C-alpha cells in the first residue's frame, strides 16, 4: 500500500495494513469503527482484518479498533490540524493527500439549523482513489459529435468509478490525440478528489491544458473559471444543488461545454431529483453515461443521447 495512505493510520493499524498481501488497485475502502473490527472492501467483497493482517470473514477474530486508534488517525490525517479542515468536516468528509476521501461520522454539533461541527468522531471510511489512465478511451468517441465535444453527464451509484472516469475524460480531452486537438479544461474540484491537489498542484494527471480550482464550491467555481480562465470545457463532480443548477445554466449558455457527474442508478432514478429533472427535461445535456458496479467497478451500462436513444453498442470495461 502506498506510504501516503499508510501514514494516515495509527501505528497499530499501519503495521497491520502494511502486512496485508493485496493488490492495492483492488482495495476500495478501509473502515474504522470504535470498538468494532477493522474492515476492508476488496474487489467489492467485505473482509475483517485480524492482528496478523489476514483478511477473514469471521468478525470475532478481527482487530478491534480502539478510540485511541481513531484519535491518532485523525491527528495524522489532518497533520494535527483538524481546524484546517473545518468546512470539510462539517460536510462529513475530508480529502487527504493523494485525493483519497475519508468519510467521518460521530456526534453532530448544531448551531441553529446549521451543522457547526462534528465531535466524538468514531467512524472513519477511507475511500481510496485510483487513477486508471485509459479507462475513458473507449467512451470518448461517444461524447464527441462531428468533432465537437458534447455536454456530458456521468450517472453512477457511489463507489462505481464516476470520479475515476471523469478524471480520465478530463485528461484525454485536455491532452488531445493525433486526430483531435486538445481543449482547455477548467476543473472545479470541490472535494479535491479529481486532481488531488497538494499545495495547489494536481497529483493526478489531468492533462496539459487543465486548470484546477481546488476545494471551491462548484456553483461559484464554474463562474470564476468562465470569467478568469476561458475554458472550452468545464468539469465538475457530483452536481445536485439548486445553486449548481443556476451556474450550469449560465455555463451552458456561454458556449462552454460541461462534463458533470451525478449520483444515481439510471436516468429514471435521477429524474426523482428536482434539480436534475429540470436539466433532463430541458435537454441541457447531450450525452448520459450510466455506470454500475455489476461486473466490476466502472462497468458502462449504457450511453444515451439527449432524446434517450441508446448509443452504446458493446460492453466496455
Amino acid at each position, binding site marked *: 500500500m502506498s506510504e501516503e495512505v499508510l501514514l494516515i493510520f495509527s501505528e497499530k493499524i499501519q503495521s497491520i495494513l502494511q502486512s496485508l498481501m493485496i493488490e492495492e488497485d483492488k482495495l476500495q475502502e478501509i473502515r474504522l469503527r470504535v470498538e468494532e473490527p477493522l474492515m476492508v472492501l476488496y474487489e467489492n467483497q467485505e473482509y475483517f482484518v485480524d492482528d496478523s493482517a489476514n483478511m477473514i470473514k469471521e468478525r470475532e477474530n478481527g482487530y478491534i479498533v480502539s478510540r485511541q486508534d481513531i484519535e491518532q488517525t485523525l491527528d495524522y490525517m489532518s*497533520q*494535527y*490540524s*483538524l*481546524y*484546517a479542515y*473545518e468546512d470539510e468536516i462539517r460536510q462529513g468528509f475530508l480529502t487527504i493527500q493523494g485525493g483519497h476521501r475519508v468519510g467521518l461520522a460521530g456526534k453532530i454539533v448544531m448551531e441553529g439549523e446549521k451543522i457547526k461541527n462534528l465531535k466524538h468522531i468514531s467512524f472513519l471510511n477511507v475511500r481510496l482513489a485510483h487513477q486508471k489512465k485509459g479507462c475513458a478511451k473507449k467512451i470518448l468517441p461517444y461524447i464527441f459529435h462531428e468533432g465537437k465535444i458534447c455536454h456530458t453527464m456521468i450517472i453512477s451509484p457511489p463507489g462505481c468509478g464516476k470520479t475515476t472516469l471523469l478524471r480520465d475524460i478530463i485528461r484525454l480531452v485536455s491532452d488531445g490525440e493525433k486526430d483531435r486537438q486538445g481543449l482547455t479544461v477548467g476543473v472545479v474540484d470541490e472535494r479535491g478528489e479529481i486532481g488531488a491537489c497538494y499545495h495547489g498542484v494536481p497529483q493526478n494527471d489531468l492533462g496539459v491544458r487543465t486548470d484546477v480550482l481546488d476545494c471551491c464550491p462548484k456553483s461559484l467555481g464554474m463562474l470564476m473559471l468562465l470569467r478568469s480562465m476561458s475554458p472550452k470545457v468545464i468539469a465538475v463532480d457530483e452536481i445536485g444543488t439548486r445553486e449548481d443548477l443556476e451556474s450550469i445554466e449560465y455555463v451552458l449558455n456561454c458556449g462552454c461545454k460541461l462534463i458533470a457527474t451525478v449520483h444515481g442508478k439510471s436516468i429514471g432514478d435521477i429524474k426523482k431529483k428536482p434539480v436534475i429533472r429540470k436539466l433532463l427535461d430541458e435537454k441541457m445535456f447531450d450525452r448520459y453515461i450510466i455506470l454500475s458496479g455489476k461486473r466490476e467497478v466502472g462497468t458502462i451500462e449504457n450511453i444515451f443521447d439527449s432524446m434517450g436513444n441508446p448509443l452504446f453498442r458493446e460492453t466496455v470495461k
Partner: protein
Amino acid sequence: MTKIAGCILLVLSGYLGGFYFSNSCKMRLEQLYELKRIVQILEGEIRYKKTTLPEAFLSVAKRTKLPFSNFFCSVASELLDNRKAGMAEIWQEKVEKLLRESKLTKNDEGFLIQLGNSLGYLDGKSQIDSLELYMEQLEEEIKKNREELYKKGKVYQCLGVSISILLVLIFI
C-alpha cells in the same frame, strides 16, 4: 606591575559581567519581540490561509531568524515524520531545547508550553483565541522586561564596575 595588571583585569571583568547581564536582558526583549511577530504570522496562516500546523510552522521558519527558525523547522518536521508522539509532547520537547539556545526564561517556557497544549486542538476560532491569549502574555512580559531593562540595565553595568573596584581596594 603584576598588581596593576591584575587590578585592570578585575575592573574589566566586572564591567564585562555587568554588560553581559544587561545585554541578556536586552536580547530577551528582542526575542520576545520576535515571538510577537511570529504569533502574528501564525495567526495570519491559520485565520486567512487555514494552513495546517506543520505548513504554518515551516512558513514561520522561513520568515524568522535563529533560534526560532530552527525551532519551528524542527517542530514541523517532527510533526510530519515522527508519528509516535502527540502535538503537545513534540512541542514541549522542542521548547525545552529552544530555552537552552535562547535568552528566554522559565516563565516564557511555561507560556510557550501552554500555547502548544492548545494548538491543533478544536476549531479555528480556538486556535486564534489561544494565539491571542499568548500574545497578551507576551505583551505583558515585554512591558515588564522593558521597564526592567530601563531600570536595571545601567545598574548592572555600574554594579559590575563598582564591585570590581571594591575588590581591587580590598586586595590592595
